[in-house]
């Protein structure tokens, strides 16, 4: 039996998460309380999940650990340590909209490979760090939450239930329009501070899910790399170490399955000294 493309599974999960998070305020209003909160702090059957940057801001500003929020952030970080920043690829509603916007940009012919730099995590990390420092030093409210795109999506439904429209939400379609015109997922690559902690966990952990590229198997001609064309973040997956901004979405793997199957997921990093052309996965294909 042929395996369904990972992209189809991922898209189903993304849409499912978006629908569930839209339904949460309505369910709560109807007395269903097994899930509550938004992407900044969520409670599912008593299990906390939360945004690590939001919890860090509260801890820095209040000069103390808020345990439920810290535990939720810890669980999210733990997930990122093992699976990488899969929240961005499988759960974030803004990521879903951004991918759809990127698909539109492709159809409009606005995507130009190489228009933007490959690295983007450093800039995002500086932004997140600066925001955290300002909030912590001056004892401010968690202001960086205001630029959390997944939180903005949650708030849309929370406010809608109260019959209000929070006007800053209009920034979301505006950013999407900019991304279509630029032909690149600018927010996720160069701005989003919320994903930094997850990406850094993925980057620094010596274990965890990541890409492995076996150059010998690649059958694409140099000018027509399917994997590069498939990556909506504009990353090059053909590296010994996966790109820092990679979210393990698997689009490049799906594209590579149509050709030489040179890309696959692996657990752990390539052993030191292993060349990019003969890396093997201890976990096998996942």
């Amino acid at each position, binding site marked *: 039996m042929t395996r369904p493309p990972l992209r189809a599974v991922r898209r189903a999960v993304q849409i499912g998460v978006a629908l569930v998070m839209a339904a949460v305020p309505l369910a709560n209003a109807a007395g269903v309380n097994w899930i*509550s909160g*938004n992407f900044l702090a969520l409670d599912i059957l008593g299990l906390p999940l939360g945004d690590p940057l*939001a919890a860090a801001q*509260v801890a820095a500003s209040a000069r103390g650990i*808020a345990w439920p929020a810290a535990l939720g952030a810890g669980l999210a970080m733990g997930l990122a340590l093992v699976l990488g920043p899969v929240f961005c690829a499988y759960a974030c509603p803004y990521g879903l909209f951004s991918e759809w916007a990127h698909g539109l940009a492709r159809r409009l012919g606005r995507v130009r490979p190489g228009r933007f730099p490959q690295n983007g995590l450093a800039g995002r990390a500086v932004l997140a760090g600066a925001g955290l420092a300002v909030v912590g030093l001056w004892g401010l*409210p*968690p202001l960086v*939450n205001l630029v959390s795109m997944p939180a903005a999506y*949650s*708030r849309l439904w929370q406010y809608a239930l109260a019959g209000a429209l929070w006007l800053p939400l209009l920034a979301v379609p505006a950013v999407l329009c900019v991304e279509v015109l630029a032909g690149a997922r600018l927010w996720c690559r160069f701005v989003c501070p919320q994903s930094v902690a997850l990406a850094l966990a993925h980057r620094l952990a010596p274990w965890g899910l990541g890409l492995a590229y076996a150059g010998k198997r690649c059958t694409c001609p140099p000018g027509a790399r399917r994997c590069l064309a498939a990556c909506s973040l504009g990353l090059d997956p053909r590296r010994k170490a996966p790109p820092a901004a990679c979210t393990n979405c698997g689009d490049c793997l799906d594209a590579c399955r149509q050709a030489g199957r040179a890309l696959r997921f692996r657990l752990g990093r390539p052993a030191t000294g292993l060349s990019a052309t003969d890396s093997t996965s201890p976990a096998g294909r996942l």
Partner: protein
Amino acid sequence: MSDGHLLRPPGARDEAEFLRRCLQCGRCAQLCPFGSIFLEAGFDPRTCGTPRIDPRRTPCWLCMRCPPACPTGALRPVTEMAKAGMGRAWLDKARCSTYEGSILCKTCHEKCPLRNTALIMDLGMFPVVTDACVGCGVCESVCPRQAIVTLPRAALPPGAGGGTP
């Protein structure tokens, strides 16, 4: 609301500390069975997304479900009504029917979740708000003459009660 201060849910810390801790997750609002808590939707980056109560819209009935739900302790995890510490009600005797002498109205006393402690009836007739009032806003919402206003704890003068923890 007075002086721009917002009436916060039960168990809220002092305003500055509350704002530092509030994650803007909205769980308190979502879990409120009465729809009393709503999220501030203004443009002030310090307060937008934080929970508030407007007694004229829906008062807090002190069910005390929201404080334990707060993931950051912006709402202290209190479960006793008497420790809600939201603010305090103020009665304008010039507008109150009973003090005015037109009719004998006991609506505020009958509806007060902390009646006979937070709101007592002087001489069995005249409503008096005491320092035990926690500022839930129920009396303000039911007063037919709109003679009561609920002040958030942050807007209270020193020593004015308001269930200060």
